[in-house]
């Protein structure tokens, strides 16, 4: 069925809607340049309330499998792609992408000139958009456009209850991971290093966390603007100096805010599996997986006890921070990859070392 992606500024991209005419979506339109890993992207909670455009035009080639999920469900508002492959081929395939999309009820606009969408976003910046069928009335479209995108996205993706996973060993490094929309491979990566993990909801008070007496605290990735969760920033402030802290993505931004730095919205963000980051100390460059629409403002770091450890080779933005005195560090990118390169798994080892393990 014919459908279209309409951007806030009126630009229209045509395609076909998978599903039915009720398959509409509203969200912030972003693009990801990864060539593989569509399922990992679809299940990354950081994409909550976003319409994700994939720049690689052939999607669904290897189907889907539970093992690639980064969360228990998909949080994306909609998917915009080129070809939607109906015949996946892979020994790991359990479902075709089409079946997966139906099951997850993800509105998908396919047969789209996604390169044109990307060029548009690149030059005009991230903006709101809707996926509608060809026959959706203008009035409905206007209404959809008018409705603001909900900002309490962290609430939507965080776990409702705390749970503990990983090593049973009493001497195992014990980490409390605050879930702002954590990707499973982050938890898996730490488990693989022998950690015991207690995953707690986003709004868990600092006291509760400290009471568990962890060896270290991990602040996860997650969706949205870090400034939308000021109460979380307040809790993090209380954690600083108490325990070693490691933050990824949103967690990184929240640490920065808690320490007095500022964040700002990037024009169109960094989303892909090919983003180079440079370690300012060694000069070494690592290819990273990224998914962020906000960044820490480097200028705001002046006079703060924070040093920049990594920057984006592409645009020089801050990609990593370290506290000058305390055992606190964070990265804007995703060392756990999934999807993307695993060049940066060593950061989890660094966290372990920081915990003295």
């Amino acid at each position, binding site marked *: 069925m014919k459908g279209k992606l309409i951007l806030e500024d009126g630009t229209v991209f045509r395609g076909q809607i998978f599903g039915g005419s009720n398959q509409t979506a509203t969200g912030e339109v972003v693009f990801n340049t990864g060539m593989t890993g569509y399922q990992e992207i679809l299940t990354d909670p950081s994409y909550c309330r976003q319409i994700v455009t994939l720049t690689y035009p052939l999607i669904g080639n290897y189907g889907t499998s539970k093992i*690639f999920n980064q969360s228990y469900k998909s949080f994306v508002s909609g998917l915009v792609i080129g070809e939607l492959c109906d015949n996946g081929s892979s020994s790991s395939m359990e479902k075709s992408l089409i079946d997966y999309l139906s099951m997850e009820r993800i509105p998908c606009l396919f047969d789209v000139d996604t390169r044109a969408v990307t060029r548009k976003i690149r030059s005009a910046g991230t903006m709101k958009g809707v996926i509608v069928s060809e026959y959706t009335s203008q009035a409905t479209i206007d209404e959809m456009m008018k409705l603001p995108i909900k900002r309490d996205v962290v609430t939507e993706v965080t776990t409702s209850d705390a749970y503990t996973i990983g090593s049973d060993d009493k001497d195992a490094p014990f980490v409390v991971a605050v879930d702002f929309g954590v990707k499973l491979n982050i938890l898996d990566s730490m488990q693989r290093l022998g950690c015991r993990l207690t995953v707690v909801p986003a709004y868990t008070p600092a006291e509760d966390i400290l009471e568990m007496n962890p060896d270290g605290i991990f602040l996860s990735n997650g969706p949205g603007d870090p400034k939308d969760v000021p109460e979380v920033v307040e809790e993090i402030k209380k954690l600083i100096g108490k325990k070693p802290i490691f933050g990824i993505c949103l967690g990184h931004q929240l640490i920065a805010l808690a320490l007095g730095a500022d964040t700002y919205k990037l024009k169109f963000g960094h989303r*892909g599996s090919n983003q180079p980051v440079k370690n300012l100390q060694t000069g070494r*460059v690592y290819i990273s997986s990224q998914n962020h629409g906000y960044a820490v403002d480097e200028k705001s770091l002046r006079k703060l006890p924070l040093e920049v450890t990594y920057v984006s*080779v592409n645009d020089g933005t801050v990609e990593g921070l370290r506290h000058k005195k305390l055992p606190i560090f964070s990265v804007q990118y995703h060392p756990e990859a999934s999807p993307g390169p695993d060049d940066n798994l060593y950061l989890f080892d660094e966290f372990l070392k920081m915990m003295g393990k």
Partner: protein
Amino acid sequence: MPKKKNLNKVMVIGSGPIIIGQAAEFDYAGTQACRSLKEEGLKVVLVNSNPATIMTDAHIADRVYIEPLTVDFLTAIIEKERPDGLLATLGGQAGLNLAVQLAQSGALEKYKVELLGTPLEAIRKAEDRELFKETMQQIGEPIPESAIVEDVHAAVDFANEIGYPIIVRPAYTLGGTGGGIAENEEELIEIVIKGLKYSMIGQVLIERSVAGWKEIEYEVMRDGHDNCITVCNMENLDPVGVHTGDSIVVAPSQTLTDHEYQMLRTASLKIIRALGIEGGCNAQFALDPNSQRYYVIEVNPRVSRSSALASKATGYPIANVSAKIAIGYTLDEITNAVTHKTKACFEPSLDYCVVKIPRFPFDKFVYADKTLGTQMKATGEVMSIDRCFEGALLKAVRSLEIGVNRLHLEKIDAWDDDKVRRRLGRCNDDRLFVIAEAFRRGIATIDEVYEITKIDRWFLYKIKAISDFERKLSKEDLTPKTLRQAKYLGLADISIAELTGKTVDAVRSMRLQQNILPMYKMVDTCAAEFEAMTPYYYSTFRAEVDEVEVSDKRKVIVLGSGPIRIGQGVEFDYCSVHSVWALREMGIEAIIINNNPETVSTDFDISDRLYFEPLTTEDVLNIIDKEKPEGVIVQFGGQTAINLAASLAEAGVKVFGTSVDNIDRAEDRERFDEVLTETQIPRPRGVSVTNLEDAITGAAEIGYPVMVRPSYVLGGRAMEIVYNEDELKDYMGRAVKVTPDHPVLVDKYMQGTEVEVDAICDGVDVVIPGIMEHVERAGVHSGDSIAVYPPQTLPAKIVYTIIDYTKRLATTLHVKGLLNIQYVVADGKVYVIEVNPRSSRTVPFLSKVTNIQMVDVATKVALGHNLKEMGYYSGLVEPKPYVAVKAPVFSFAKMQDVDISLGPEMKSTGEVMGIDYHYARALYKAITGAGMNIPLNGCILFTVADKDKEELKQLAKAYAELGFSIVATEGTAKAIRAAGIDAEIVGKVHERSTDIIQMIKLGKIHMVINTLTQGKHIAKDGFRIRRATVEHGIACLTSLDTAWELLRVLSFMRERRLVYSLALQDYVGGGDDLA
């Protein structure tokens, strides 16, 4: 300035002549490297024996040596030039091997030359099987169980241990020469013996075969600071078992999950780090389609064919970046040439699908074994880009120029279902088409085809989708809707016409009426994430927005020459590039259309805009519709471009240069006869026939031997000399399709001296930069002959006649630009054999030695300038005081079952040049550069046809006088003895005791002089002898003319030094201050 201190002068080794396994990709890589080094203010010394390349242009390097790529010559050049560094990782396996040899010989140490880029130790670790295995074991990367053997017994023992099938790979070879898969002991023994012979170090690797697994490649870059990135990964459609150079390849991988993609990416990075490579590197993996298991199957510690493909597929200039790394830069210091903003330290993201299909020489080598295996057979390749696999696949198929516009081979139509099904199991160049046909007929399911071919189902779904749609289309009326679907799928107008019974024009006008137009998208390395500067485009019917910013400047389209094949090699790419440069110099925007990923012309910074597209009427017209250029230039893209001239002109496109009508007058037999009558120039007697009866009568009238060939030929395709009626009948039945539209030409075969001329004409004046005389008499294809500039034996009167005829022909044909004429001189008379109203194979060679940039001049002429205003005068340009010899290079070692004897059918894949003030040394350099093992003493085997026995007597005598011992077959020996020369008789092939083949195997014979008895029958002794010389790497001369010239070299060289080198700049002037 380079980051490395004390680096002022760098020597770059090119890859030499084009052979199977080492083609134009290294011209692209070497050119990029030289430019990259010069950009840094370095003096560049280039050595390459191949004159048909851009990289050997005098302006690409400060000092260009067109000399044989041997340790002796390179050492001499090093001694003279004293470079500070040597860059050898961009000259293919040839360059890499030479660097290793130069290090081993102590030359590098002696002259204090630093090996730049990948260190020697890393090269050894990657190339030496045992060291490689150790390294991989250390880092825990799995490689198939294997053993290095130096004899057959060890191979058999190992195979018995791990079981068959077993794969055999010789160490230190290129293109997998001498390798193969053995299913049993007998096959194993055969392959191992051959492999040992080909290996530079007498070793072969035998290992467990993982045939049928997915074959995945990664192109990786590493700098001296240990930064590593992968440029691209590629998936072979053909599973492991087919050499990657012979496989259909897609980029990026299509069927790998992110997990698999990253697993192999991580492995690639681990490997490049463990080996310590600095620059580009290629890693190949076998991935079990049923598990996550994988094996590392090969690593190339250098820029390779796959690197060229990856560069073109992504826009990431691997060779340029590798060169920068070699002189000390790190990836994050090198600017991304595409965005000019970001750095080279990133991984390209593609938002399209790339398909590469190899181009095979089986149209020339009709008797060759077409089976694809671990030994590469393709001469070239095409690449295509689209937003979908189907579109890219179909574009690639029609770029191949094998008379196919979709997945349909006419000959398969005649096969019954059983045969089609059977042939699914045969892995050769037809297989893609057989699969499509099986789906079209509905006689095989995806699963069945998968079980037989092990081609991933994803690809099969796509092929089937095309077949299914074709079937639907052929049953229904063409509606705007189905037309749209057809284009969405990537079918060409001509295919749609074929399937619906409409004319191409009707399809096209319906398409234009419906506004179904291709959109053009940019290749930008970053999937549109950043604004890019690359003027590099491809078309797609799956898009809404077109990205090309069409300018309103003056602009001209240059048509490229497509894939490298026998008869149309890198020389035409050289011409296309020069034409582009000339246009840009004139202030005109130059747009190039080409589909060959190996070439310089498809580098995005050569032209103002590059369209990576098939060279078919539809694809070209679509671009013309969009760009609205003043016109197109067709004369530099070989027969590929010339063949498009008529249809483009018909569509109202202005063809610059010689008019389409005049092209036709030169190429159409009857019209050309009129030209000759008008100009009163003789040609060998001949007739044009359209059926067998006429051919027999015609040949009888003309008198045997006659030369037969189809009209409109390319590289002497299907051309043969026949000596009697039986052979003629055989030819007419086998080699050609004769129809009234496709007449066959029957000409008197004249045994004379062949002379070749390239000239430039502006309609009035005719400039002849040089005349070339062929060493081999007429009858050997001009591309396979040794050509000498200036002529050494032609009397002044003949030269005068040739100048006169050339002028007459050029002006009568109103040539505007280049033309090439082949003459035969017999009994003091000059005859015209053929006229090509376009640039020829010899243009780069002649341009270089005469220092006249022929293509630049011709381009200007085509655009309306005249020769006088450029300072040229009619007539032959005064010959230079030096001699240049162009010698052909063959790839016989890769093509078993191909007869190496020379004839009118072209067989060479490349060429080399020798240049010197002495003719004999120039010749020596040419044949040494061509890889011929010239014995300075030893034993020569003579076995010649009866017709040659008189001439042989003198020849044998002369060789005997030089101290060679002579052995001969009985009849030949009798003739030699009759001349009073001692000749030992050797038994013929079937006479076991003193079997010739045995003697060759045992190394008792150092050269063979053998002329073809008659006919082309493959089972002849002569064929076996000739093949044996190839397998054992000894020289075999199949023309007495070559033997005479070699004699000249040998006697001359007795008293003089063999190695003497000057740079091209020394010969033609310029650059002397550096010497």
